[in-house]
């Protein structure tokens, strides 16, 4: 027995209900009967939608990678490994455009709702004639268009539909270590998949290696400037907050302060708002979008945030302070992503990132190591 949607074969997860046997492994995506024949979504793609326009020119390195992706994807899957801020999105635009030109179905899937919204506007500027559809929780009415941008959780709505699926940030929650979701994503695509990520670990390679794939790397940002490597201060827990205050006093730029839990985010905001110009954001907060937007406009100097701002967002000229006081919350990929928020301005690719940690962890050293490796490769080029 095998679930047609999530490929589960473990018999413990099959339950016999009054309508027949169904799979409980992927039950949160609505029930799939075992005998059910899933249908692929059928819609037409407008071939004129393929014209695109980037508002900057790709560097030579970027062009080379973009071409390589374009050549490889017809025959094999691609694992696109780029550092933060290298322009992963722009690298696949050419490939997407070529597929659209042939009238094939393309989907860009990413883990977070905010990023889907953000990408929706970005792609609307790039593909001006295309009808772009964004799908995320609470916004699912329209399912067909020329280019579909959705959260990974919405992929269950499509079965063997896409000719090209770009799966962004495979290293992050919720895709990381979630076999069910990855299988659903794989099943939504009948062609090939571009996995794009900033950190690659063995688990991911193993997961992807079930099918033939090629790894393509781009370890430099377009400005060819070294990536910022975080400074790490190991402190006892009670010293973290005084040190944080001192650092904030010294800070001249705008700054994101990452904390490991929502509760800490709330408490820290309640204390710090009396002394600093500060706002906050976490996933359940109602005024979250407003707070982030006001920080983006520069109305506040600091924002305290959980991992909601960890990836997919771009602020210009900021610094980052990461408080890593709970074990096992921030792993390597999230640390890399958080430091990756720094120096995203093309004209001013500098800034600083500081990790305040209460314990020694492998993830911090792995994060530093991977960033240093990228910088080393850059230094070889010069």
């Amino acid at each position, binding site marked *: 027995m095998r679930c047609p949607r999530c490929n589960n074969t473990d018999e413990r997860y099959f339950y016999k209900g009054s309508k*027949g046997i169904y799979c409980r492994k992927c039950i949160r995506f609505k029930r799939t009967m075992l005998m059910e024949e899933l249908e692929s979504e059928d819609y037409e793609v407008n071939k004129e939608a393929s014209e695109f326009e980037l508002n900057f020119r790709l560097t030579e390195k970027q062009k080379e990678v973009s071409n390589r992706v374009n050549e490889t994807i017809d025959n094999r899957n691609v694992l696109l490994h780029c550092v933060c801020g290298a322009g992963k999105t722009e690298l696949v635009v050419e490939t997407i455009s070529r597929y659209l030109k042939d009238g094939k179905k393309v989907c860009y899937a990413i883990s977070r709702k905010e990023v889907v919204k953000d990408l929706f506007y970005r792609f609307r500027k790039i593909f001006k004639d295309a009808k772009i559809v964004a799908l995320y929780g609470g916004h699912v009415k329209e399912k067909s268009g020329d280019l579909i941008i959705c959260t990974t959780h919405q992929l269950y709505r499509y079965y063997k539909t896409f000719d090209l699926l770009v799966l962004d940030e495979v290293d992050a929650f919720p895709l990381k270590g979630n076999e069910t979701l990855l299988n659903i994503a794989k099943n939504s695509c009948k062609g090939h998949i571009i996995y794009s990520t900033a950190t690659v670990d063995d688990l991911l390679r193993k997961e992807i290696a079930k099918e033939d794939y090629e790894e393509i790397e781009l370890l430099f940002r377009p400005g060819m400037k070294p990536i910022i490597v975080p400074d790490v201060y190991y402190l006892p827990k009670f010293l973290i907050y005084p040190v944080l205050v001192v650092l904030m006093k010294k800070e001249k730029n705008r700054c994101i302060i990452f904390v490991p839990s929502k509760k800490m985010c709330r408490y820290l905001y309640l204390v710090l708002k009396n002394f600093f110009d500060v706002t906050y954001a976490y996933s359940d907060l109602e005024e979250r979008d407003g707070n982030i937007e006001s920080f983006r406009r520069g109305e506040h100097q600091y924002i305290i945030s959980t991992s909601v701002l960890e990836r997919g967002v771009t602020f210009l000229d900021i610094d980052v302070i990461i408080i890593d006081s709970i074990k096992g919350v921030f792993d390597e990929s999230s640390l890399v992503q958080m430091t990756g928020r720094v120096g995203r301005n093309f004209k001013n690719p500098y800034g600083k990132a500081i990790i305040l940690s209460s314990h020694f962890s492998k993830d911090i050293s792995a994060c530093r190591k991977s960033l240093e490796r990228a910088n080393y490769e850059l230094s070889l080029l010069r």
Partner: protein
Amino acid sequence: MNCLYCDEEIKKIRFAALLNGEDKLCIKCREGMIKRHEKFLVEDMEVETFYDYDSFFRSLLLQYKECYDEALKDVFLYEIKDYLKFRYRGYRILYVPSTKRKNEERGFEHLRGIFSDLGMEEVKGLAMKNELVQEGRNRKEREEMTINYIYNGNMIDKVLIVDDVFTTGSSLKGVYSAIKPFTKRVKAVCLSKKTLA
């Protein structure tokens, strides 16, 4: 055995498992269902609710009702089954009807799935005039829907109306006003109650 909701292995069992039998949820999930026993009147009918309709209970109920996960049907009454059996002995049970379309899609009636374990005799003959869905409607619209039920059946002594979530009470009121002329005593049980946030 693994927990039906969070899929973790169940290593410890509670003392209550000796009385109630094997629990299909793990301790953590079971404690996630926050117990709040309340009794109050709707019009002049006594209503009893047992749980808080918080985010956890909501997701549990949605997995059962909207994702059609029939395996969860024994989970809800696990703690209160014996109490209900004792307190409402002699009553006949009446499920608040749900739309036909939904039932066909599900393949089962969700309330019958939960409450059929009580072994009470069922009242038949209650129907909806129009197939309306309550979810997403406001209080005023819901109150207009109370005249939506119609009963044609025999006289019954004691009736227990059961439902899953108590929000404004309008569906209970509707069923109550339809069944009232045919009975001597009516009471109601809802699994959970939505409190104002």
